[in-house]
């Protein structure tokens, strides 16, 4: 067990190098000249050639590719992602609060999604094939096929403007979480709830259930056992939900003016603020990777059968 965990954790190291290298290569493939972007972003109305040369040396952009990569990697390890082209502030300082907000939203979403999908999964598995099961499935199916920005905008319009119940956008109190979380988690729920429902149904046919039932074990207890066994497959998926949602909040953040990573990234795309995009890719890919490993370990702990494989 311990070996497995250590082995799994050690895979982070090569992954880190690959991820960082790809993030670095991407920025260097970009067709726009970083120096020009920087000068332009600072509102210098007239950019002269001397100014460009000067800035280039100042930023160390005149050095060869590999040297720049190693320097950059060294900085990244020390949590220095460079300076934003546009605001001239350290990228880390800009990304960290945004990361916090995105994390909050992703966590809120994950919690709501997990609770909702477990609840609906159990209900639907119990009443499998009946109206409530079919209804819930169809409803969630359609909701998850609706563009989130569309529901989001309609929801703002209805709940905030027409009913004036909730704030339209931004962060602040818990009420700000309601709309984005509702819109997002209901979409994700469609996927997770079906997973739980299906694995519950599969477990219902297992011998231990038949045996328990025939022994006259109470239905409540039987369901509990079924649930415990069927949740295992969902756990790994839930571990991936957090990074998945962090990456998936982009549109929602823009609709609800949530000051998170997605919004920062989109505005950086418009401003060609490459260091921020780079840091965004690096951070999300890394957390994706970490949660993936975390998910594997949790699954292994829960299910000893898988450990040997």
């Amino acid at each position, binding site marked *: 067990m311990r070996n497995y965990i250590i082995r799994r954790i050690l895979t982070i190291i090569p*992954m880190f190098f*690959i*991820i960082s290298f*790809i*993030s670095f290569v*991407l*920025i260097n*493939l*970009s*067709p726009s000249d970083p120096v020009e972007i920087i000068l332009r972003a600072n509102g210098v109305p007239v950019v002269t050639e001397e100014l460009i040369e000067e800035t280039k040396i100042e930023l160390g952009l005149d050095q060869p590719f590999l040297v720049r990569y190693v320097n950059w990697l060294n900085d990244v390890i020390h949590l220095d992602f460079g300076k934003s082209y546009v605001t001239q502030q350290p990228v880390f300082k800009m990304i960290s609060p945004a990361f916090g907000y995105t994390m909050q939203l992703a966590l809120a979403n994950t919690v709501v999604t997990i609770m909702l999908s477990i609840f609906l999964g159990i209900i639907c598995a119990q009443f*499998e*094939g009946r109206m409530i099961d079919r209804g819930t499935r169809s409803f969630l*199916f*359609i909701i*998850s*096929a*609706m*563009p*989130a*920005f*569309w529901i989001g*905008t*309609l929801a703002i*319009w209805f709940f905030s*403007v027409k009913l004036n119940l909730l704030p339209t956008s931004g962060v602040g109190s818990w009420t700000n979480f309601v709309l984005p979380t509702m819109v997002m988690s209901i979409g994700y729920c469609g996927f997770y709830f079906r997973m739980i429902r*299906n694995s519950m*149904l*599969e477990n*219902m*046919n297992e011998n231990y259930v*038949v045996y328990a*039932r*025939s022994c006259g074990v109470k239905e409540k207890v039987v369901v509990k056992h079924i649930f415990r066994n069927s949740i295992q497959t969902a756990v790994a998926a839930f571990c991936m939900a957090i*990074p*998945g949602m962090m*990456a*998936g909040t*982009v*549109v929602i953040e*823009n609709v609800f003016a949530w000051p998170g990573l997605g919004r920062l*990234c*989109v505005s*950086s*795309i*418009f401003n*060609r603020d*490459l260091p921020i*995009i780079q840091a*965004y*890719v690096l951070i*999300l*890919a890394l957390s*994706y*990777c970490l949660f*993936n490993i975390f998910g594997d370990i949790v699954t292994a702990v829960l299910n000893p059968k898988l450990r040997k494989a």
Partner: protein
Amino acid sequence: MMNVWSKIKKDRIAVSCLAIILMIIIVGIFANFFAPNDPLEINATLKFDGPSWEYPLGNDQLGRCMLSRLIFGIRTSVLFVLVAMFATISIGTILGIIAGYFKGKVDEVIMRVCDIVLSFPSEVMTLAIVGMFGTGLKNILLACILMKWAWFARVFRSAVMKYTDKNYVMFSKASGCKTGHILRKHILPAIFPEIAVMASNNISSQILMVSGLSFLGLGVQAPTPEWGMMLSEAKDAMLIHPYQMLPSGIAIMVMAVSFSFLGDSIRDAMDVKHEGYALKKNRFKRKRLAA
């Protein structure tokens, strides 16, 4: 495979989804023929007009025909995504089959590359590629292909592995059939339903993603009609003309729902254990227990 098809034929939802999809694709291909007006023609005086005989779905913020824009939008919002998906599937299938059939070193290399690609969340990489190379539908679709092929390759690899050990494949091999023949005649048909399920589910998420990015302004160039961008244009006037939000929103929804329903139905038809059969068996058991 025939079995799957005959089951789908019986599923009314699947058939109607398929019909909707085909209809929309045909309308999109022959948009010139179906659209009542020029989608780019501006009639400033008809700005935000409601439906009329000449403009069945009304006019947008520049007085253009909404229906015509919707119809021409099929090309950018659906057809291009389908083309990209086709490219993704082709790459994924070819690499998956190579890896699964030939195994060994080739397999190892392809799978490691897959691992690397899969370690990046696809939404993030799409944004990254758009961020580095500039906005535009071309870059979004390119990003989709780059990020999604690995999923297909991996799934098809294991599907192929499952079938290479089947007796009839072994038999063909032993009887001296050419590799290409085996792949074409035995392996590809066997994994086809799996391709269909994955493609169909992926298309609906892809349509949503492309329209989402267009909504954020990262997609097509104006004035090319595209559903996501039409929505984003409509939302600016949402308070005064809420109706403008409906046509393109519903179009995206119908498309995404149809594709996911279809994918689901194919899965149901393929995989007896999952829903239909298992449920019946289970119900039978429960009844027996109750009795």
